[in-house]
């Protein structure tokens, strides 16, 4: 693997220097010089130099030497919580179906749970050509070692070329373990999945540097090619009552796989039962709300509109609302029909969690707040005054 600067093409403009996260590039005698000890081959400099194309990376062929043609079909892990299929799994099935069609492969849904045969079989209607339901009395809730072993064993036996899962707390916990065990290439938290039909490669695009940079990742020489997919970014699969497929019911006896960790207690912490990732309307508050008491006006507005309450990281860090309400890079990704951002400045990290909302309203008394760059309707004013007045106006208009 090597990287070089074409000295004829380089004009010493320094764009590459400024793009390099590792501070690996210096201008020496008006030409860019790359310190190989610092370079991690991320390619940000190549992107920065797209005008002159002076920088190139040559890749050695990697070791590996496995017979890729043995790996067939797309498999997806379908997550269930308390007997209900998690929303992200329908999105993963939707993407899996597209990839399967593009590559001419079958789509297999792998479900781990107990006593949900009907729901598992339903997945055929959502695009799976085959459903493998691993059914066992101790499989109804997530267990690290058990799920990891079942999925790793499945991969080793069935050799899917691509394996997908949702990037939930569960997925992001055990899928990296599986990838480490089977030596698969895992790309975390993808916001876009595409396929190179000619090379039969999965292209996973994902945010890095807190969302400031996007990277497209490939896994050319190892299998399976793995990806976890962020919830609420891709379209869910639609039900097609006419679809037929194969249903494989595997009974896993209790205690078959030893589990090292033990769950002692499960505690739910949300202000209401409305899960913000499923809400069509979200009223969200940030530091501009000034005090925790002021969040009540957001709850009141949310109630009139029939929505849920969200929060920026600043509000959660200040202890005003539980973490389950946090929207953003390190919180939840939401895509409601309407997102009302009150007293939220709109950092890149917050935007990463809500920018795909259908309609964004921002209320902030700083006209230069970043949130206005992505708001469909920007209201320059104090949320503390506007929000209660808006709640009253809507109540009157709706006769509530």
């Amino acid at each position: 693997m090597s990287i070089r600067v074409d000295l004829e093409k380089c004009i010493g403009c320094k764009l590459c220097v400024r793009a390099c996260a590792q501070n690996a590039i210096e201008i020496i005698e008006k030409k860019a010089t790359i310190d190989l000890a610092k370079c991690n081959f991320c390619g940000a400099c190549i992107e920065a130099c797209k005008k002159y194309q002076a920088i190139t990376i040559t890749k050695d062929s990697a070791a590996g030497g496995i017979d890729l043609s043995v790996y067939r079909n797309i498999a997806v892990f379908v997550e269930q919580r308390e007997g209900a299929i998690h929303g992200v799994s329908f999105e993963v099935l939707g993407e899996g179906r597209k990839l399967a069609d593009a590559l001419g492969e079958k789509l297999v849904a792998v479900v781990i749970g107990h006593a949900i045969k009907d729901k598992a079989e339903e997945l055929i209607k959502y695009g799976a050509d085959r459903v493998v339901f691993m059914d066992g009395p101790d499989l109804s809730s997530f267990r690290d070692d058990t799920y990891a072993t079942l999925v790793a064993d499945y991969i080793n036996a069935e050799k899917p070329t691509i394996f997908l899962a949702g990037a939930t707390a569960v997925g992001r916990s055990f899928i990296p373990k599986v990838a480490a065990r089977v030596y698969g290439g895992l790309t975390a938290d993808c916001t876009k999945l595409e396929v190179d039909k000619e090379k039969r490669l999965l292209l996973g695009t994902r945010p890095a540097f807190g969302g400031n940079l996007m990277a497209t990742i490939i896994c050319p020489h190892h299998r399976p090619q793995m990806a976890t997919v962020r919830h609420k970014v891709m379209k869910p699969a639609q039900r097609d009552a006419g679809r037929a497929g194969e249903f494989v019911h595997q009974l896993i006896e209790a205690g078959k796989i030893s589990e090292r960790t033990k769950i002692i207690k499960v505690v739910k912490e949300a202000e209401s039962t409305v899960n913000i990732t499923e809400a069509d309307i979200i009223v969200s508050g940030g530091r501009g709300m000034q005090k925790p008491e002021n969040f009540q006006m957001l709850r009141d507005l949310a109630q009139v509109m029939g929505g849920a309450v969200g929060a920026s990281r600043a509000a959660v860090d200040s202890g005003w609302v539980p973490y389950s309400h946090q929207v953003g890079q390190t919180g939840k990704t939401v895509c409601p029909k309407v997102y009302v951002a009150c007293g939220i400045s709109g950092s890149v990290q917050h935007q990463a969690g809500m920018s795909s909302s259908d309609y964004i309203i921002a209320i902030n008394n700083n006209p230069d707040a970043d949130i206005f760059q992505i708001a469909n309707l920007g209201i320059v004013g104090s949320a503390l005054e506007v929000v209660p007045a808006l709640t009253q106006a809507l109540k009157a208009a709706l006769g509530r």
Partner: protein
Amino acid sequence: MNIIVCIKQVPGTTQVKINPETGTLIRDGVEAVVNPFDEYAIEEAVRIKERIGGTVKVISKGPPQAEIALRSAIAMGADEGYLITDRALAGSDTWATSYELSHGIKKLGAFDLIICGKQAIDGDTAQVGPGVAEMLGIPFVAWVRKVEEVSAMSIRVERMMEEGYEVVEMPLPGLITVVKEINTPRVASLKGKMRAKKLEIPQLTFASLDADPNRVGLKGSPTQVLRSFVPQRKTGGEKVSGTTEELVEKLKTTILELGVIK
């Protein structure tokens, strides 16, 4: 209790901005820092040591300047620091990094607990902690926001989930990855900084890892970056100011027109 903390040196991204003309990342004057999540890991390790005794060893894999990050950790109270560094290890993805780190950890002797930060703020993958645990054959719990109890045999923690948390018990040796809710990292004391300045930090090269050359660096990495690009930013719509009455009227009309309220 022998505790090992894995850390990474990353660019301080809070200053990252996009150049509006060229659309590229601007990194002027951005210094390298200890990955913020790793600071929480170091702090938790030092607190456990202060409570029940033991040693805290910090290990990192990176270019030579990553040594600065290790010294920051020592200044916070870690006892020893180790740097895995070698040109042959350049270009590693998360699989290869987990492999290199786990081999380095094996050279540090017996351990009871490994603590990692949830994720690095440049890569954002959160894969190395679980990867290291898997390759060392030890159990792990991710997203720990509180250590309730720790003894020689086991640890009991609160694991953060999307809608709340779970209390989980894990036998040791084991690994946990921590989130920022777990503690507030201390500011290094003068005494700590002076110790950190003088302490020798051994370097582990590829040769000392007893590792398979086909499984390290770019060569051993199953994933590669095809390309990087700056994301397209959504552009805003209309922006209005006025009296509260005017603003509320505009909002009410717009919201009702959207027809989303049931």
